[in-house]
Protein backbone atom coordinates (compact mmCIF):
# COMPACT_ATOMS: atom_id res chain seq x y z
CA UNK A 1 0.00 0.00 0.00
CA UNK A 2 1.46 3.37 -0.94
CA UNK A 3 2.01 5.72 1.94
CA UNK A 4 1.64 3.08 4.63
CA UNK A 5 4.45 2.92 7.07
CA UNK A 6 5.46 -0.54 8.25
CA UNK A 7 3.88 -1.49 11.53
CA UNK A 8 6.46 -2.35 14.16
CA UNK A 9 6.07 -6.04 15.06
CA UNK A 10 5.69 -6.41 18.78
CA UNK A 11 6.04 -9.68 20.61
CA UNK A 12 2.99 -11.90 20.33
CA UNK A 13 2.24 -12.10 24.04
CA UNK A 14 2.28 -8.34 24.34
CA UNK A 15 -0.08 -7.96 21.40
CA UNK A 16 -2.36 -10.52 23.07
CA UNK A 17 -2.36 -8.55 26.30
CA UNK A 18 -3.05 -5.28 24.51
CA UNK A 19 -6.24 -6.47 22.79
CA UNK A 20 -7.96 -9.17 24.86
CA UNK A 21 -11.55 -7.96 24.29
CA UNK A 22 -11.01 -7.38 20.61
CA UNK A 23 -9.62 -10.87 20.24
CA UNK A 24 -12.67 -12.40 21.92
CA UNK A 25 -15.02 -10.33 19.75
CA UNK A 26 -13.21 -11.39 16.59
CA UNK A 27 -13.25 -15.04 17.66
CA UNK A 28 -17.04 -14.81 18.13
CA UNK A 29 -17.45 -13.12 14.77
CA UNK A 30 -15.40 -15.83 13.06
CA UNK A 31 -17.53 -18.48 14.74
CA UNK A 32 -20.65 -16.84 13.29
CA UNK A 33 -19.07 -16.80 9.85
CA UNK A 34 -18.02 -20.44 10.02
CA UNK A 35 -21.12 -21.87 11.71
CA UNK A 36 -23.31 -22.20 8.58
CA UNK A 37 -20.45 -23.89 6.76
CA UNK A 38 -19.83 -26.37 9.57
CA UNK A 39 -23.58 -26.98 9.74
CA UNK A 40 -23.51 -27.74 6.04
CA UNK A 41 -20.70 -30.25 6.37
CA UNK A 42 -22.24 -31.89 9.42
CA UNK A 43 -25.72 -32.18 7.87
CA UNK A 44 -24.30 -33.56 4.64
CA UNK A 45 -23.39 -36.86 6.35
CA UNK A 46 -26.70 -37.45 8.13
CA UNK A 47 -29.91 -39.35 7.48
CA UNK A 48 -32.85 -37.07 6.55
CA UNK A 49 -34.56 -37.90 9.88
CA UNK A 50 -31.50 -36.79 11.84
CA UNK A 51 -31.39 -33.28 10.38
CA UNK A 52 -33.72 -31.57 12.85
CA UNK A 53 -32.83 -33.65 15.89
CA UNK A 54 -32.80 -31.73 19.20
CA UNK A 55 -30.18 -31.10 20.40
CA UNK A 56 -28.31 -30.73 17.15
CA UNK A 57 -25.59 -33.35 16.76
CA UNK A 58 -22.57 -31.62 15.21
CA UNK A 59 -20.77 -34.92 14.68
CA UNK A 60 -23.10 -37.32 12.88
CA UNK A 61 -23.64 -40.85 14.28
CA UNK A 62 -22.26 -42.36 11.11
CA UNK A 63 -20.86 -40.77 7.99
CA UNK A 64 -23.24 -41.42 5.14
CA UNK A 65 -20.95 -41.01 2.16
CA UNK A 66 -23.88 -42.08 -0.07
CA UNK A 67 -25.25 -38.56 0.28
CA UNK A 68 -22.37 -37.38 -1.85
CA UNK A 69 -22.71 -40.16 -4.45
CA UNK A 70 -26.46 -40.51 -5.03
CA UNK A 71 -27.19 -36.94 -6.22
CA UNK A 72 -24.36 -37.22 -8.72
CA UNK A 73 -26.10 -40.26 -10.19
CA UNK A 74 -29.51 -38.59 -10.24
CA UNK A 75 -28.55 -35.27 -11.80
CA UNK A 76 -25.71 -34.18 -14.14
CA UNK A 77 -23.68 -32.34 -11.50
CA UNK A 78 -20.40 -33.28 -13.18
CA UNK A 79 -21.59 -31.78 -16.43
CA UNK A 80 -22.71 -28.61 -14.61
CA UNK A 81 -19.32 -28.37 -12.97
CA UNK A 82 -17.57 -28.72 -16.34
CA UNK A 83 -19.91 -26.10 -17.84
CA UNK A 84 -19.17 -23.68 -15.04
CA UNK A 85 -15.45 -24.21 -15.54
CA UNK A 86 -15.60 -23.78 -19.33
CA UNK A 87 -17.75 -20.66 -19.07
CA UNK A 88 -15.86 -18.99 -16.23
CA UNK A 89 -12.43 -19.67 -17.76
CA UNK A 90 -13.49 -18.45 -21.23
CA UNK A 91 -15.21 -15.35 -19.88
CA UNK A 92 -12.16 -14.52 -17.79
CA UNK A 93 -9.86 -14.93 -20.78
CA UNK A 94 -12.11 -12.78 -22.99
CA UNK A 95 -12.24 -10.13 -20.28
CA UNK A 96 -8.47 -10.04 -20.02
CA UNK A 97 -8.14 -9.55 -23.77
CA UNK A 98 -10.79 -6.85 -24.03
CA UNK A 99 -9.71 -5.01 -20.89
CA UNK A 100 -5.97 -4.95 -21.61
CA UNK A 101 -6.52 -3.80 -25.21
CA UNK A 102 -9.23 -1.26 -24.42
CA UNK A 103 -7.46 -0.09 -21.26
CA UNK A 104 -4.29 0.54 -23.27
CA UNK A 105 -6.26 2.27 -26.00
CA UNK A 106 -8.08 4.60 -23.58
CA UNK A 107 -4.93 5.31 -21.56
CA UNK A 108 -2.30 5.97 -24.21
CA UNK A 109 -3.90 6.95 -27.55
CA UNK A 110 -5.74 10.08 -28.56
CA UNK A 111 -8.04 9.43 -31.51
CA UNK A 112 -11.29 11.32 -32.01
CA UNK A 113 -14.19 9.83 -30.03
CA UNK A 114 -11.96 8.13 -27.50
CA UNK A 115 -13.50 9.84 -24.48
CA UNK A 116 -17.03 9.24 -25.71
CA UNK A 117 -16.38 5.52 -26.16
CA UNK A 118 -14.77 5.27 -22.73
CA UNK A 119 -17.61 7.27 -21.21
CA UNK A 120 -20.22 4.93 -22.69
CA UNK A 121 -18.44 1.86 -21.36
CA UNK A 122 -17.92 3.40 -17.93
CA UNK A 123 -21.58 4.45 -17.73
CA UNK A 124 -22.70 0.82 -18.07
CA UNK A 125 -20.86 0.06 -14.83
CA UNK A 126 -23.65 1.86 -13.00
CA UNK A 127 -26.44 0.09 -14.85
CA UNK A 128 -27.25 -3.27 -13.31
CA UNK A 129 -27.78 -6.23 -15.63
CA UNK A 130 -31.21 -6.69 -14.06
CA UNK A 131 -32.29 -3.42 -15.71
CA UNK A 132 -31.72 -4.68 -19.27
CA UNK A 133 -32.02 -8.43 -18.88
CA UNK A 134 -35.29 -8.64 -20.83
CA UNK A 135 -34.01 -7.22 -24.16
CA UNK A 136 -30.67 -8.98 -23.62
CA UNK A 137 -32.50 -12.29 -23.35
CA UNK A 138 -34.52 -11.50 -26.51
CA UNK A 139 -31.32 -10.58 -28.37
CA UNK A 140 -29.53 -13.78 -27.32
CA UNK A 141 -32.60 -15.79 -28.32
CA UNK A 142 -32.76 -14.06 -31.72
CA UNK A 143 -29.09 -14.86 -32.28
CA UNK A 144 -29.99 -18.51 -31.67
CA UNK A 145 -27.67 -18.63 -28.67
CA UNK A 146 -30.02 -19.99 -26.01
CA UNK A 147 -28.51 -23.19 -24.62
CA UNK A 148 -25.12 -22.67 -26.27
CA UNK A 149 -21.70 -21.90 -24.87
CA UNK A 150 -21.50 -18.87 -27.16
CA UNK A 151 -24.59 -17.47 -25.49
CA UNK A 152 -23.16 -18.04 -22.02
CA UNK A 153 -19.71 -16.67 -22.84
CA UNK A 154 -19.63 -13.94 -25.49
CA UNK A 155 -22.13 -11.43 -24.02
CA UNK A 156 -20.15 -11.52 -20.75
CA UNK A 157 -16.84 -10.84 -22.52
CA UNK A 158 -16.57 -7.17 -21.62
CA UNK A 159 -16.55 -5.76 -18.11
CA UNK A 160 -16.67 -2.03 -17.51
CA UNK A 161 -14.85 -2.25 -14.23
CA UNK A 162 -12.04 -4.37 -15.69
CA UNK A 163 -11.54 -1.88 -18.53
CA UNK A 164 -11.55 1.09 -16.15
CA UNK A 165 -9.14 -0.72 -13.84
CA UNK A 166 -6.70 -1.55 -16.68
CA UNK A 167 -6.86 2.01 -17.98
CA UNK A 168 -6.02 3.42 -14.55
CA UNK A 169 -3.07 1.05 -14.26
CA UNK A 170 -1.70 1.59 -17.77
CA UNK A 171 -1.95 5.36 -17.34
CA UNK A 172 0.76 5.12 -14.68
CA UNK A 173 3.24 3.66 -17.20
CA UNK A 174 5.68 6.28 -18.53
CA UNK A 175 5.07 7.19 -22.18
CA UNK A 176 8.82 7.03 -22.84
CA UNK A 177 8.71 3.29 -22.42
CA UNK A 178 6.23 2.94 -25.28
CA UNK A 179 8.01 5.55 -27.41
CA UNK A 180 11.34 3.76 -26.94
CA UNK A 181 9.79 0.52 -28.17
CA UNK A 182 8.39 2.37 -31.21
CA UNK A 183 11.79 3.85 -32.02
CA UNK A 184 13.22 0.34 -31.82
CA UNK A 185 10.79 -0.51 -34.59
CA UNK A 186 8.33 -2.57 -32.57
CA UNK A 187 4.87 -2.84 -34.14
CA UNK A 188 1.86 -1.73 -32.06
CA UNK A 189 0.63 -5.29 -31.32
CA UNK A 190 4.20 -6.23 -30.35
CA UNK A 191 4.27 -3.34 -27.85
CA UNK A 192 1.12 -4.74 -26.21
CA UNK A 193 2.67 -8.19 -25.95
CA UNK A 194 6.19 -7.32 -24.84
CA UNK A 195 5.85 -3.98 -23.04
CA UNK A 196 2.32 -3.67 -21.62
CA UNK A 197 1.58 -7.28 -20.68
CA UNK A 198 4.73 -7.98 -18.63
CA UNK A 199 4.36 -4.71 -16.70
CA UNK A 200 0.68 -5.29 -15.99
CA UNK A 201 1.07 -8.72 -14.40
CA UNK A 202 -0.38 -7.73 -11.01
CA UNK A 203 -3.32 -5.87 -12.51
CA UNK A 204 -4.01 -8.78 -14.84
CA UNK A 205 -4.04 -11.31 -12.04
CA UNK A 206 -6.41 -9.08 -10.06
CA UNK A 207 -8.80 -8.88 -12.99
CA UNK A 208 -8.51 -12.61 -13.62
CA UNK A 209 -9.46 -13.33 -10.02
CA UNK A 210 -12.49 -11.11 -9.76
CA UNK A 211 -13.78 -11.89 -13.25
CA UNK A 212 -13.53 -15.59 -12.47
CA UNK A 213 -15.24 -15.17 -9.13
CA UNK A 214 -18.09 -13.04 -10.49
CA UNK A 215 -18.66 -15.37 -13.37
CA UNK A 216 -18.41 -18.61 -11.41
CA UNK A 217 -21.16 -17.28 -9.14
CA UNK A 218 -23.23 -15.57 -11.81
CA UNK A 219 -26.91 -16.54 -11.61
CA UNK A 220 -29.64 -14.54 -13.34
CA UNK A 221 -28.08 -14.54 -16.82
CA UNK A 222 -27.27 -18.27 -17.04
CA UNK A 223 -30.65 -19.01 -15.44
CA UNK A 224 -32.31 -17.52 -18.52
CA UNK A 225 -29.85 -18.54 -21.24
CA UNK A 226 -29.30 -22.15 -20.14
CA UNK A 227 -32.66 -23.80 -19.69
CA UNK A 228 -31.54 -27.30 -20.68
CA UNK A 229 -29.63 -29.49 -18.25
CA UNK A 230 -26.77 -29.88 -20.72
CA UNK A 231 -25.86 -26.16 -20.58
CA UNK A 232 -26.67 -25.30 -16.99
CA UNK A 233 -23.92 -23.99 -14.79
CA UNK A 234 -23.37 -25.18 -11.23
CA UNK A 235 -25.35 -22.50 -9.31
CA UNK A 236 -28.33 -22.93 -11.66
CA UNK A 237 -28.12 -26.72 -11.46
CA UNK A 238 -27.98 -26.54 -7.68
CA UNK A 239 -30.99 -24.25 -7.49
CA UNK A 240 -32.95 -26.60 -9.77
CA UNK A 241 -31.91 -29.57 -7.60
CA UNK A 242 -33.01 -27.65 -4.53
CA UNK A 243 -36.48 -26.99 -5.88
CA UNK A 244 -36.92 -30.59 -7.03
CA UNK A 245 -35.33 -32.52 -4.14
CA UNK A 246 -35.67 -29.96 -1.39
CA UNK A 247 -36.76 -32.45 1.26
CA UNK A 248 -33.57 -34.49 1.21
CA UNK A 249 -31.54 -31.96 3.17
CA UNK A 250 -28.44 -34.11 3.70
CA UNK A 251 -28.06 -34.71 -0.04
CA UNK A 252 -28.74 -31.06 -0.72
CA UNK A 253 -26.03 -30.06 1.75
CA UNK A 254 -23.63 -32.63 0.30
CA UNK A 255 -23.87 -31.31 -3.27
CA UNK A 256 -23.77 -27.72 -2.05
CA UNK A 257 -20.62 -28.50 -0.13
CA UNK A 258 -19.09 -30.21 -3.17
CA UNK A 259 -19.98 -27.21 -5.34
CA UNK A 260 -18.39 -24.86 -2.85
CA UNK A 261 -15.19 -26.84 -2.43
CA UNK A 262 -13.28 -25.96 -5.65
CA UNK A 263 -13.71 -22.21 -5.18
CA UNK A 264 -12.84 -22.52 -1.53
CA UNK A 265 -9.63 -24.41 -2.36
CA UNK A 266 -8.65 -21.86 -5.01
CA UNK A 267 -9.42 -19.13 -2.49
CA UNK A 268 -7.23 -20.65 0.22
CA UNK A 269 -4.35 -21.14 -2.21
CA UNK A 270 -4.60 -17.60 -3.61
CA UNK A 271 -6.15 -15.87 -0.59
CA UNK A 272 -3.65 -13.02 -0.54
CA UNK A 273 -4.26 -12.27 -4.23
CA UNK A 274 -8.05 -12.60 -3.81
CA UNK A 275 -8.17 -10.13 -0.97
CA UNK A 276 -5.79 -7.74 -2.68
CA UNK A 277 -7.80 -7.87 -5.90
CA UNK A 278 -10.90 -6.77 -4.00
CA UNK A 279 -8.97 -4.21 -1.95
CA UNK A 280 -7.54 -2.61 -5.11
CA UNK A 281 -11.06 -2.29 -6.44
CA UNK A 282 -11.82 0.17 -3.68
CA UNK A 283 -8.56 2.07 -3.69
CA UNK A 284 -8.30 2.47 -7.46
CA UNK A 285 -12.03 2.82 -8.01
Amino acid at each position, binding site marked *: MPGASPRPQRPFVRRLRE*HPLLLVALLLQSALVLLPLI*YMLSTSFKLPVE*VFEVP*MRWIPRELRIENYVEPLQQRPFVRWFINSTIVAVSVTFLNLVTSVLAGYSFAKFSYPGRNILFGFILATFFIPLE*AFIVPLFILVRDLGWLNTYAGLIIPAGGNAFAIFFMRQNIMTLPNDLIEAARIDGASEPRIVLSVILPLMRTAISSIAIFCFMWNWNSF*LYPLLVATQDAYRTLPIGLASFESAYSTNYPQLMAVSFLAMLPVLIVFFVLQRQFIEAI*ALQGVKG
Partner: protein
Amino acid sequence: MPRLRISVRARQNAWGFAFALPAVVLFGVFAVYPILRTFYLSVHRYSLVGTPEYVGAANFRFILTDPGFAQTLRNTGFYALGTYVPVLALALVMALALNTGVPFRNVFRVINFIPVVISWAIVAIVWKILFHHQGLINQALVQLGFERIPWLQSTSAAPWAVIIPSIWKELGFYTVIFLAGLQTIPRIFYEAARIDGAGTLQAFRFITLPLLRPILFFATIIAVIEGVKVFIPQFVMTGGGPSGATKVIAVSIYETAFAFGRMGRAAAMSVLLFAIVLILTLTQNLVYGRDRS
Protein backbone atom coordinates in the same frame (compact mmCIF):
# COMPACT_ATOMS: atom_id res chain seq x y z
CA MET B 1 8.93 16.23 -42.76
CA PRO B 2 5.59 17.19 -41.19
CA ARG B 3 3.51 15.01 -43.52
CA LEU B 4 5.28 11.84 -42.47
CA ARG B 5 4.83 12.72 -38.80
CA ILE B 6 1.09 13.15 -39.27
CA SER B 7 0.75 9.84 -41.01
CA VAL B 8 2.76 8.07 -38.31
CA ARG B 9 0.52 9.61 -35.67
CA ALA B 10 -2.58 8.69 -37.66
CA ARG B 11 -1.41 5.10 -37.99
CA GLN B 12 -0.75 4.88 -34.28
CA ASN B 13 -4.21 6.23 -33.54
CA ALA B 14 -5.75 3.78 -35.96
CA TRP B 15 -4.11 1.01 -33.93
CA GLY B 16 -5.34 2.63 -30.74
CA PHE B 17 -8.88 2.59 -32.08
CA ALA B 18 -8.48 -1.00 -33.23
CA PHE B 19 -7.46 -2.00 -29.69
CA ALA B 20 -10.65 -0.51 -28.28
CA LEU B 21 -12.79 -2.19 -30.91
CA PRO B 22 -13.42 -5.63 -29.31
CA ALA B 23 -14.66 -3.98 -26.11
CA VAL B 24 -16.63 -1.33 -28.00
CA VAL B 25 -18.40 -3.92 -30.15
CA LEU B 26 -19.22 -6.17 -27.18
CA PHE B 27 -20.55 -3.25 -25.15
CA GLY B 28 -22.42 -1.83 -28.09
CA VAL B 29 -24.19 -5.09 -28.87
CA PHE B 30 -24.69 -6.62 -25.41
CA ALA B 31 -25.07 -3.55 -23.19
CA VAL B 32 -25.86 -0.29 -25.01
CA TYR B 33 -28.30 -1.86 -27.49
CA PRO B 34 -30.31 -3.82 -24.86
CA ILE B 35 -30.33 -0.76 -22.58
CA LEU B 36 -31.85 1.40 -25.34
CA ARG B 37 -34.15 -1.46 -26.28
CA THR B 38 -35.45 -1.54 -22.69
CA PHE B 39 -36.80 1.98 -23.17
CA TYR B 40 -38.35 0.98 -26.50
CA LEU B 41 -40.01 -2.14 -25.08
CA SER B 42 -41.31 -0.24 -22.06
CA VAL B 43 -43.84 1.54 -24.28
CA HIS B 44 -44.85 -1.59 -26.18
CA ARG B 45 -46.79 -4.76 -25.57
CA TYR B 46 -44.76 -7.83 -26.43
CA SER B 47 -44.94 -11.45 -25.40
CA LEU B 48 -41.84 -12.96 -27.08
CA VAL B 49 -43.86 -13.87 -30.20
CA GLY B 50 -45.14 -11.60 -32.96
CA THR B 51 -44.17 -7.94 -33.17
CA PRO B 52 -44.22 -5.39 -30.35
CA GLU B 53 -47.36 -3.26 -30.33
CA TYR B 54 -47.10 0.40 -29.28
CA VAL B 55 -49.16 1.13 -26.16
CA GLY B 56 -47.83 4.50 -25.02
CA ALA B 57 -47.49 4.90 -21.27
CA ALA B 58 -49.90 2.06 -20.49
CA ASN B 59 -47.20 -0.17 -18.95
CA PHE B 60 -46.03 2.62 -16.65
CA ARG B 61 -49.60 3.51 -15.73
CA PHE B 62 -50.25 -0.11 -14.86
CA ILE B 63 -47.20 -0.69 -12.65
CA LEU B 64 -47.41 2.69 -10.94
CA THR B 65 -51.03 2.14 -9.93
CA ASP B 66 -50.55 -1.52 -9.02
CA PRO B 67 -50.51 -1.91 -5.21
CA GLY B 68 -48.47 -5.10 -5.67
CA PHE B 69 -45.69 -3.17 -7.36
CA ALA B 70 -45.77 -0.44 -4.72
CA GLN B 71 -45.22 -3.25 -2.22
CA THR B 72 -42.33 -4.51 -4.36
CA LEU B 73 -40.69 -1.08 -4.30
CA ARG B 74 -41.08 -0.88 -0.51
CA ASN B 75 -39.64 -4.38 -0.13
CA THR B 76 -36.63 -3.42 -2.24
CA GLY B 77 -35.99 -0.31 -0.16
CA PHE B 78 -36.40 -2.28 3.05
CA TYR B 79 -33.95 -4.93 1.86
CA ALA B 80 -31.38 -2.42 0.62
CA LEU B 81 -31.40 -0.41 3.85
CA GLY B 82 -31.84 -3.41 6.15
CA THR B 83 -28.86 -5.13 4.58
CA TYR B 84 -26.39 -2.45 3.63
CA VAL B 85 -26.68 0.01 6.53
CA PRO B 86 -25.59 -2.76 8.95
CA VAL B 87 -23.09 -4.14 6.42
CA LEU B 88 -21.33 -0.80 5.92
CA ALA B 89 -21.33 0.01 9.64
CA LEU B 90 -20.13 -3.44 10.69
CA ALA B 91 -17.54 -3.53 7.90
CA LEU B 92 -16.07 -0.25 9.14
CA VAL B 93 -15.92 -1.65 12.68
CA MET B 94 -14.35 -4.88 11.41
CA ALA B 95 -11.80 -2.96 9.35
CA LEU B 96 -10.84 -0.80 12.33
CA ALA B 97 -10.54 -3.94 14.48
CA LEU B 98 -8.35 -5.69 11.91
CA ASN B 99 -6.19 -2.60 11.46
CA THR B 100 -4.91 -2.89 15.03
CA GLY B 101 -2.15 -5.12 16.30
CA VAL B 102 -4.65 -7.79 17.37
CA PRO B 103 -3.14 -11.30 17.12
CA PHE B 104 -4.21 -13.56 14.21
CA ARG B 105 -5.62 -10.61 12.31
CA ASN B 106 -4.68 -12.18 8.96
CA VAL B 107 -6.52 -15.35 9.92
CA PHE B 108 -9.59 -13.31 10.88
CA ARG B 109 -9.36 -11.39 7.64
CA VAL B 110 -9.35 -14.60 5.59
CA ILE B 111 -12.21 -16.21 7.57
CA ASN B 112 -14.29 -13.06 7.28
CA PHE B 113 -13.80 -13.13 3.52
CA ILE B 114 -14.90 -16.76 2.96
CA PRO B 115 -18.63 -15.95 2.44
CA VAL B 116 -17.69 -13.52 -0.34
CA VAL B 117 -16.31 -16.30 -2.56
CA ILE B 118 -19.21 -18.71 -2.04
CA SER B 119 -21.99 -18.69 -4.66
CA TRP B 120 -25.11 -16.85 -3.57
CA ALA B 121 -27.12 -19.89 -4.66
CA ILE B 122 -25.31 -22.07 -2.09
CA VAL B 123 -25.58 -19.44 0.64
CA ALA B 124 -29.33 -19.12 0.05
CA ILE B 125 -29.83 -22.91 0.13
CA VAL B 126 -27.95 -23.33 3.44
CA TRP B 127 -29.75 -20.46 5.17
CA LYS B 128 -33.08 -21.74 3.95
CA ILE B 129 -32.43 -24.90 5.98
CA LEU B 130 -31.10 -22.93 8.95
CA PHE B 131 -34.38 -20.95 8.93
CA HIS B 132 -36.52 -24.13 8.66
CA HIS B 133 -39.30 -24.26 11.25
CA GLN B 134 -37.40 -26.96 13.18
CA GLY B 135 -34.03 -25.67 12.01
CA LEU B 136 -30.96 -24.65 13.96
CA ILE B 137 -31.98 -21.00 14.44
CA ASN B 138 -35.39 -21.88 15.88
CA GLN B 139 -33.76 -24.55 18.07
CA ALA B 140 -31.47 -21.88 19.46
CA LEU B 141 -34.44 -19.54 20.06
CA VAL B 142 -36.29 -22.28 21.97
CA GLN B 143 -33.16 -22.96 24.04
CA LEU B 144 -33.03 -19.27 24.95
CA GLY B 145 -36.68 -19.36 26.02
CA PHE B 146 -38.25 -17.70 22.96
CA GLU B 147 -40.99 -18.91 20.66
CA ARG B 148 -40.16 -20.41 17.28
CA ILE B 149 -40.42 -17.86 14.46
CA PRO B 150 -41.94 -19.01 11.15
CA TRP B 151 -39.08 -17.32 9.33
CA LEU B 152 -39.98 -18.19 5.76
CA GLN B 153 -43.77 -18.42 6.23
CA SER B 154 -44.61 -15.16 7.96
CA THR B 155 -44.81 -11.89 6.07
CA SER B 156 -43.16 -10.01 8.93
CA ALA B 157 -40.23 -12.40 9.46
CA ALA B 158 -39.43 -13.37 5.85
CA PRO B 159 -37.81 -10.03 4.91
CA TRP B 160 -35.40 -10.54 7.82
CA ALA B 161 -34.77 -14.14 6.83
CA VAL B 162 -33.41 -12.78 3.55
CA ILE B 163 -31.53 -9.85 5.09
CA ILE B 164 -29.61 -11.87 7.71
CA PRO B 165 -27.81 -14.16 5.21
CA SER B 166 -27.11 -11.10 3.05
CA ILE B 167 -25.30 -9.38 5.91
CA TRP B 168 -23.42 -12.63 6.54
CA LYS B 169 -22.37 -12.86 2.90
CA GLU B 170 -21.56 -9.22 2.11
CA LEU B 171 -19.68 -8.13 5.22
CA GLY B 172 -16.26 -9.48 4.16
CA PHE B 173 -16.24 -7.65 0.84
CA TYR B 174 -16.73 -4.20 2.38
CA THR B 175 -14.37 -4.99 5.27
CA VAL B 176 -11.56 -5.65 2.81
CA ILE B 177 -12.30 -2.46 0.90
CA PHE B 178 -12.35 -0.36 4.08
CA LEU B 179 -9.25 -2.07 5.43
CA ALA B 180 -7.36 -1.25 2.23
CA GLY B 181 -8.48 2.35 2.66
CA LEU B 182 -7.35 2.47 6.28
CA GLN B 183 -3.95 1.14 5.31
CA THR B 184 -3.38 4.01 2.89
CA ILE B 185 -3.62 6.51 5.79
CA PRO B 186 -0.08 7.25 6.91
CA ARG B 187 0.51 6.21 10.52
CA ILE B 188 2.35 9.46 11.13
CA PHE B 189 -0.97 11.37 11.03
CA TYR B 190 -2.15 9.47 14.08
CA GLU B 191 1.14 9.98 15.88
CA ALA B 192 0.96 13.71 15.18
CA ALA B 193 -2.62 13.80 16.48
CA ARG B 194 -1.62 11.96 19.62
CA ILE B 195 1.20 14.42 20.29
CA ASP B 196 -1.35 17.20 19.89
CA GLY B 197 -3.43 15.51 22.58
CA ALA B 198 -6.22 14.06 20.39
CA GLY B 199 -8.05 11.00 21.72
CA THR B 200 -8.98 7.88 19.76
CA LEU B 201 -12.46 9.18 18.90
CA GLN B 202 -11.10 12.54 17.78
CA ALA B 203 -8.51 10.85 15.62
CA PHE B 204 -11.29 8.76 14.06
CA ARG B 205 -13.48 11.82 13.48
CA PHE B 206 -10.79 14.17 12.13
CA ILE B 207 -8.32 11.82 10.42
CA THR B 208 -9.87 8.44 9.60
CA LEU B 209 -13.30 9.55 8.37
CA PRO B 210 -12.16 12.41 6.10
CA LEU B 211 -9.33 10.40 4.57
CA LEU B 212 -11.58 7.38 4.12
CA ARG B 213 -14.28 9.45 2.43
CA PRO B 214 -13.49 8.48 -1.20
CA ILE B 215 -13.62 4.81 -0.23
CA LEU B 216 -16.79 5.24 1.80
CA PHE B 217 -18.27 6.93 -1.24
CA PHE B 218 -17.25 4.12 -3.59
CA ALA B 219 -18.53 1.49 -1.15
CA THR B 220 -21.89 3.22 -0.68
CA ILE B 221 -22.44 3.48 -4.43
CA ILE B 222 -21.65 -0.21 -4.91
CA ALA B 223 -23.84 -1.10 -1.92
CA VAL B 224 -26.80 0.91 -3.21
CA ILE B 225 -26.63 -0.73 -6.63
CA GLU B 226 -26.24 -4.20 -5.08
CA GLY B 227 -29.15 -3.51 -2.75
CA VAL B 228 -31.71 -2.40 -5.30
CA LYS B 229 -30.83 -5.01 -7.94
CA VAL B 230 -30.89 -7.97 -5.52
CA PHE B 231 -32.32 -11.18 -6.96
CA ILE B 232 -30.82 -14.49 -5.82
CA PRO B 233 -31.63 -14.65 -2.08
CA GLN B 234 -35.30 -13.87 -2.67
CA PHE B 235 -35.51 -16.06 -5.75
CA VAL B 236 -33.96 -19.10 -4.04
CA MET B 237 -35.13 -18.72 -0.43
CA THR B 238 -38.71 -17.45 -0.72
CA GLY B 239 -39.53 -17.04 -4.41
CA GLY B 240 -40.68 -13.54 -3.42
CA GLY B 241 -43.24 -14.89 -0.93
CA PRO B 242 -45.01 -15.32 1.38
CA SER B 243 -47.75 -13.30 -0.37
CA GLY B 244 -45.20 -11.00 -1.97
CA ALA B 245 -43.51 -10.03 1.30
CA THR B 246 -40.01 -10.47 -0.14
CA LYS B 247 -40.74 -9.70 -3.78
CA VAL B 248 -38.12 -7.20 -4.95
CA ILE B 249 -37.85 -5.37 -8.28
CA ALA B 250 -35.57 -7.92 -9.99
CA VAL B 251 -37.77 -10.84 -8.94
CA SER B 252 -40.77 -8.92 -10.23
CA ILE B 253 -39.05 -8.25 -13.56
CA TYR B 254 -38.12 -11.92 -13.88
CA GLU B 255 -41.63 -13.09 -13.03
CA THR B 256 -43.42 -10.56 -15.24
CA ALA B 257 -41.21 -11.32 -18.23
CA PHE B 258 -40.54 -15.01 -18.00
CA ALA B 259 -43.50 -16.43 -16.07
CA PHE B 260 -46.25 -14.11 -17.36
CA GLY B 261 -44.66 -13.30 -20.74
CA ARG B 262 -45.25 -9.56 -20.41
CA MET B 263 -42.01 -8.18 -21.81
CA GLY B 264 -43.24 -4.59 -22.12
CA ARG B 265 -44.41 -4.40 -18.54
CA ALA B 266 -41.15 -5.97 -17.33
CA ALA B 267 -39.22 -3.44 -19.43
CA ALA B 268 -41.17 -0.61 -17.78
CA MET B 269 -40.15 -2.00 -14.38
CA SER B 270 -36.56 -2.13 -15.66
CA VAL B 271 -36.73 1.53 -16.66
CA LEU B 272 -37.88 2.30 -13.13
CA LEU B 273 -35.01 0.25 -11.65
CA PHE B 274 -32.63 2.12 -13.92
CA ALA B 275 -34.09 5.47 -12.82
CA ILE B 276 -33.81 4.53 -9.14
CA VAL B 277 -30.14 3.56 -9.51
CA LEU B 278 -29.44 6.75 -11.46
CA ILE B 279 -31.15 9.02 -8.92
CA LEU B 280 -29.44 7.36 -5.96
CA THR B 281 -26.00 7.47 -7.61
CA LEU B 282 -26.38 11.11 -8.62
CA THR B 283 -27.64 12.08 -5.15
CA GLN B 284 -24.62 10.47 -3.55
CA ASN B 285 -22.41 12.20 -6.07
CA LEU B 286 -23.90 15.56 -5.11
CA VAL B 287 -23.62 14.92 -1.39
CA TYR B 288 -20.05 13.79 -1.81
CA GLY B 289 -19.14 16.69 -4.07
CA ARG B 290 -20.66 19.24 -1.68
CA ASP B 291 -18.96 17.78 1.36
CA ARG B 292 -15.63 17.71 -0.35
CA SER B 293 -15.51 21.43 -1.12
